[in-house]
């Protein structure tokens, strides 16, 4: 493996799942979601991300299973292509280029080889139309799909605003206050309108639509929280509708259950409402789902419901409306105030999660490790409420202490709380130790621990800076109180200020002896023992945005970035400016394990990365045009073991990895590895049931029959993936191999019989199996190998001896061939 030449920006997770409704696979084992430019496949059993299917050049806007082959998936994207995937293997089968932006995708079982997409109308900016696209059957992978026919004009852009009715007989679309229903057979278009926006409880604009799967009934959701059920819409005049009202705000999505007896609705209240029997208005609730519901989808067997939330979380709900599990990657929070912090204990990224919570996000598995409730108050999902926000967090060096700041805007003063959490080894989670009300009189701007690994606990000091022009030093105090549960608590030890300037940033030097606090334009350096002001630095006319100390060999330098676009480095020994550079630095992030410092600048619509050592003015590494979006936050995550990096240019990536978060909350990293290497862990063997069990009875009986039929005749047909344990690999291989390359039956018989016996030594049988497997792979691969096999057939009937001979017979060139083949990944074979 040769080290790749360049560094590439790799997306790690956290992109929006809001493209389209999630889709269950036909056997309800997997869940498919549009996630940014990718389609993600999750396992419903383990909540793992199994596959990441990439290929689209822009946001994926719609995914649908191929109604004629449930192993295939259509996806549409803003880049104007429809892709057909084999999602079990993650292979794109076909790409159809439509040409214009695609905003939604619908596939119907009735229409043979066409799908419906929403595209913008030619010429007009915000008018959209529903068109049916004929997917031509061609040989190649990339095909043009130009045969478009307009079905409905003037539709809304959202995929929630169009629904297809019972067996594809009609299509209903809503826009603003209009509902239009188009009947395919009659070619009749009915339009209905609801009475304007004059109602006192808000406007009655349509927000979403769902069609009953078996009856002629359309459910529409409205912006004022009402749900209307339309019937008799065949007639232009005699239509009827009834109203259901529970939501107090917009109904975000609606879904009928598979049989159509129940209706599910969700909205900003983050309550899933189940309308039990649609006509008599019984309802059931699943409250406190965490965040507003964006999409609802129901699994084809009706056992599961999946809600997609605004914060990129997926919740799986049982049929009896019980919370089952949630799939959560990087939770998207509305306002990322805490920054990107690395938990020293788990090496997880820690940042704002759901409101009032901290999420610990595991980078390796793209999963949320846990969510720590900091605010500990009931969150009310309602617009216009001043919610308590988590604004600052800091970890002590070993992750033993966690300090959090939460604030709530009030009319007069902000309500502030500083909380200190102690890591409890027993429960393996953080426990609240001290709560300080109003630690500062105004917002807290920065916070840091004095992190010294080697020293005792009593050296642990927390510094907070506030807009009330002071910084405060908090220390632990021993509690002599025998009745109190805890032995230590925190209290204020020192308050410092400088010319009544607002304190903006603080940081400790590596050895903890110096504290740097920036007060608007000035950096002050304080002795951390006596809290005396040692010296001050400033760079003319620029307020300081970030400061940090150099590390290791560069610990005599102090780096600061000003908001008028300068990066300055001061020497602490000579108390003079060492160098400065003109750069508009947004993020300044020192690597905790080396002396490198990463600075991310924002210049004319592109972010650039500069990595430098403080003792030299010239950066070691520059990456221009890191990404188009503004980069808000960055963090160095220490690697478990130093990576071997060939070129000296990338030596700064040896000990830690740099992660950064963009405006759109996509998590990116820089990697020297190629894409294939990075993706290897996710290429796992998957199995999907080819034949779908219909009832539990058929599940019982069908399995039995299937086995029989396969053994008898149906060799061509591939075997179900998850076989009972008794099936030896030999048998499997026997059944997998095409008939024309199989040895004669008389030869195979003893192997087969042997394989059915209970083996005395497991090992030998396994060896046999392995070798046979290898053989069959070879035979499949090319005809050279086939000749060998045929030779082998004639030799002996004893399989054990045969194996030894066979390996002898393989010539050197063939051996090379074999090795090459062995290296190739055949795991996909066993998927069938």
């Amino acid at each position, binding site marked *: 493996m040769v080290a790749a030449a360049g560094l590439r920006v790799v997306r790690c997770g956290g992109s929006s799942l809001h493209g389209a409704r999630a889709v269950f696979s036909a056997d309800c084992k997997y869940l498919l979601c549009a996630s940014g430019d990718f389609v993600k496949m999750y396992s419903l059993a383990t909540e793992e991300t199994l596959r990441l299917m990439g290929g689209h050049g822009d946001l994926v806007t719609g995914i649908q299973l191929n109604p004629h082959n449930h192993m295939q998936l259509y996806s549409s994207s803003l880049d104007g292509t429809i892709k057909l995937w084999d999602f079990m293997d993650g292979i794109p089968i076909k790409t159809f280029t439509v040409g214009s932006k695609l905003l939604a995708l619908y596939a119907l079982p009735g229409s043979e080889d066409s799908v419906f997409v929403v595209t913008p109308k030619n010429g007009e900016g915000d008018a959209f139309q529903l068109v049916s696209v004929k997917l031509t059957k061609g040989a190649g992978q990339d095909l043009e799909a130009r045969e478009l026919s307009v079905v409905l004009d003037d539709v809304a852009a959202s995929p929630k605003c169009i629904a297809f009715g019972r067996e594809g007989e009609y299509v209903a679309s809503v826009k603003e206050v209009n509902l239009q229903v188009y009947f395919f057979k009659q070619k009749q278009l009915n339009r209905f309108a609801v009475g304007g926006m004059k109602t006192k409880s808000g406007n009655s604009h349509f927000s979403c639509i769902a069609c009953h799967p078996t009856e002629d009934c359309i459910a529409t959701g409205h912006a004022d929280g009402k749900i209307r059920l339309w019937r008799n819409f065949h007639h232009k005049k005699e239509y009827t509708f009834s109203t259901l009202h529970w939501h107090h705000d917009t109904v975000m999505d609606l879904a009928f259950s598979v049989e159509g007896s129940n209706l599910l609705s969700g909205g900003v209240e983050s309550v899933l409402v189940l309308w039990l029997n649609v006509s008599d208005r019984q309802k059931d609730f699943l409250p406190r789902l965490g965040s507003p519901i964006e999409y609802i989808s129901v699994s084809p067997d009706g056992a599961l419901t999946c809600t997609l939330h605004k914060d990129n979380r997926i919740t799986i709900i049982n049929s009896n409306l019980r919370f089952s599990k949630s799939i959560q990657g990087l939770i998207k929070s509305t306002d990322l105030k805490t920054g990107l912090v690395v938990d020293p204990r788990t090496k997880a990224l820690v940042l704002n999660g759901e409101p009032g919570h901290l999420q610990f996000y595991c980078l390796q598995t793209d999963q949320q490790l846990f969510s720590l409730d900091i605010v500990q108050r009931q969150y009310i999902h309602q617009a216009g409420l001043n919610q308590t926000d988590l604004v600052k967090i800091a970890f002590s060096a070993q992750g033993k202490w966690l300090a959090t700041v939460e604030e709530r805007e009030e009319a007069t003063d902000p309500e502030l709380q500083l909380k200190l959490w102690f890591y409890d080894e027993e429960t393996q989670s953080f426990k609240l130790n001290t709560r300080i009300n109003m630690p500062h009189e105004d917002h807290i701007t920065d916070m840091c621990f004095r992190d010294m690994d080697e020293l005792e606990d009593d050296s642990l000091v927390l510094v907070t800076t506030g807009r009330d022009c002071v910084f405060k030093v908090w220390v632990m105090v021993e509690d002599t109180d025998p009745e109190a549960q805890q032995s230590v608590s925190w209290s*204020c030890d020192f308050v410092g200020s400088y010319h009544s300037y607002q304190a903006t940033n603080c940081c400790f030097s590596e050895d903890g002896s110096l504290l740097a606090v920036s007060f608007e334009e000035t950096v002050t350096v304080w002795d951390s023992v006596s809290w005396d002001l040692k010296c001050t630095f400033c760079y003319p006319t620029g307020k300081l945005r970030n400061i940090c100390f150099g590390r290791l060999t560069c610990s005599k330098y102090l780096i600061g970035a000003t908001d008028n676009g300068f990066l300055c480095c001061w020497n602490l020994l000579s108390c003079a400016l060492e160098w400065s550079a003109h750069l508009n630095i947004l993020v300044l992030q020192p690597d905790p394990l080396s002396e490198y410092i990463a600075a991310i600048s924002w210049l004319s619509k592109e972010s650039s990365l500069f990595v430098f050592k403080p003792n030299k003015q010239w950066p070691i590494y520059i990456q221009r045009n890191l990404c188009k979006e503004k980069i808000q936050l960055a963090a160095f995550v220490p690697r478990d073991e130093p990576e071997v990096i060939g070129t000296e240019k990338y030596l700064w990536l040896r000990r830690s990895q740099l992660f950064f978060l963009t405006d759109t909350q996509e998590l990116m990293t820089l990697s020297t590895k190629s894409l294939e290497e990075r993706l290897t862990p996710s290429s796992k063997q998957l199995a999907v049931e080819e034949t779908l069990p219909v009832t539990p009875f058929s599940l019982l009986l069908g399995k039995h029959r299937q086995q029989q039929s396969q053994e008898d005749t149906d060799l061509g047909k591939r075997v179900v993936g998850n076989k009972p344990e008794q099936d030896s690999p030999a048998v499997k291989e026997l059944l997998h191999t095409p008939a024309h390359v199989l040895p004669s039956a008389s030869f195979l018989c003893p192997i087969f019989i042997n394989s059915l016996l209970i083996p005395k030594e497991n090992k030998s049988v396994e060896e046999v199996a392995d070798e046979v497997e290898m053989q069959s792979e070879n035979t499949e691969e090319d005809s050279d190998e086939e000749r060998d096999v045929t030779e082998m057939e004639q030799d002996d009937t004893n399989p054990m001896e045969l194996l030894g001979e066979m390996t002898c017979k393989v010539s050197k060139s063939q051996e090379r061939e074999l090795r090459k083949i062995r290296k190739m990944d055949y795991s996909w074979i066993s998927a069938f």
Partner: protein
Amino acid sequence: MATYKPVVVQQFPKLGERITQDTVYWRGYKTPVQIKEFGAINKIDFSPVAPYNYAVTASSRIHIYGRYSQEPIKTFSRFRDAAYCATYRGDGNLLVAGSEEGSIRLFDISGKAPLRQFDGHTKAVHVAGFLSDKYRIFSGGDDYSSNLWDIPSGTEIVSFSEHTDYVRCGCASKVNADVFITGSYDHTVKLFDARTRSSIMTIDHGQPVESVLLFPSGGLLVSAGGRYVKVWDILKGGQLLVSLKNHHKTVTCLCLNSSGQRLLSGSLDRHVKIYSTTSYKVVHSFNYATSILSLALSPEDETIVVGMTNGVLNVKHRKPEERKEKSQQKRQPAYRTYMKGRTYMPKQEDFFVSKPAKHVLRKYDKLLKSFQSSKALDAVLEPPIRLHTPEVTVAVMQELHRRGTLRSALAGRDEKQINLLLTFVARRVIEPRFTPVLVTVADMITDIYHPVVGQSAIVDRQFLKLQEAIGKEIDYQEELLEVLGMMDTLFASFTKKRDTYLGDKQNNGLTKMIETNANN
């Protein structure tokens, strides 16, 4: 999916006294038993042997009390005038007492009439006691003399006339049978040896000495007089170890606890202070109704007996150790059905079905869960919560404010409810922990109900009360700010001129910054 999170009621640490192990220990006494005696109680002495009876000397009588008896089990009343300082001998069989007429009497515990009478003092004898050899008695009298008596012969062995004022206290060494000390109103404590003809050490206390005490080791001497309790090292020739000034009136009595780890002092200022004998810091203190004259602690600290100037004897018994197993035994039959299988340990192959934990919500939480703001507010305005745990009421008000429904919860109330609300707000708004929330509440109430002002006399009165309370608080805060300003000037003038900024440590919750001239 999260469950409903109950309202967090903020707990504030209690200011003032800190709970230490000592406070726990010394608080472990039952409510006192008060026994009325005939006059001021000048001495209480516990018998050193088993039933631990105690002799109380008051007026002309000596009463012997049993451990839990409220009536004296024996009385010695053969005194014409006041009796003083009834003291047990080391084996608990004999009792010696001085008297106003100058005679010293020796009683047998079982008898009634005195066994011996020692005459020799010309004035009242306020102190008498046994030496540790059990056969001799020392005494001190108002005739300035300290005498030593032989019990078998009933004669005076030696008389020391070294004090120049009344001798009012004394004690014998437990280590050496020949040594005893006396304290006198001439401000001195003298150490006598029966084998010599004069005192062997004189310690100047500085105030009339009211009480002296020797540590069991005999090396340390404690003297009390005036407001001071002083500890002296005898082995170092009477060097002052520590001087304690924790009382604000004369200290009248001293006592050690059974382990010798704590020193107790009683004073006319109605307090008993308990000191640690290692750090000599006050670890606890008791408060009594009247001035304390005498004090005694039974072995194992079972009982504290305090005698007052008004003749009241205050007896405190230690609470028995709580026995949990006893209560469990009691409960067992009633809970038999519930206890069934409680002790069953699941085997490895057992499938364990855990019972979901039941979360019991308070009434206001249930109402808040179902978004019934007005009812939730009603629930926390009920008397038990409003009066005893106002923090709950305030926490719910804050939660309602956070939800944006406080205004609607406050609105639409009748005269009685407004009265209730206003009473609560007016009373609590000045408490610093509630002020931020209650100011908002008061604001909203005035906002909502100002159209109805003048329609109800009760509500009007409450509004005036609220106004008064807030006005007072503002005046108070202004005064505090003035004081703060004064202190700032003082501190600033004390601080040396330096080129750096100084911050002083947080003092009494007030944080002040002292800024001196800067370097740039």
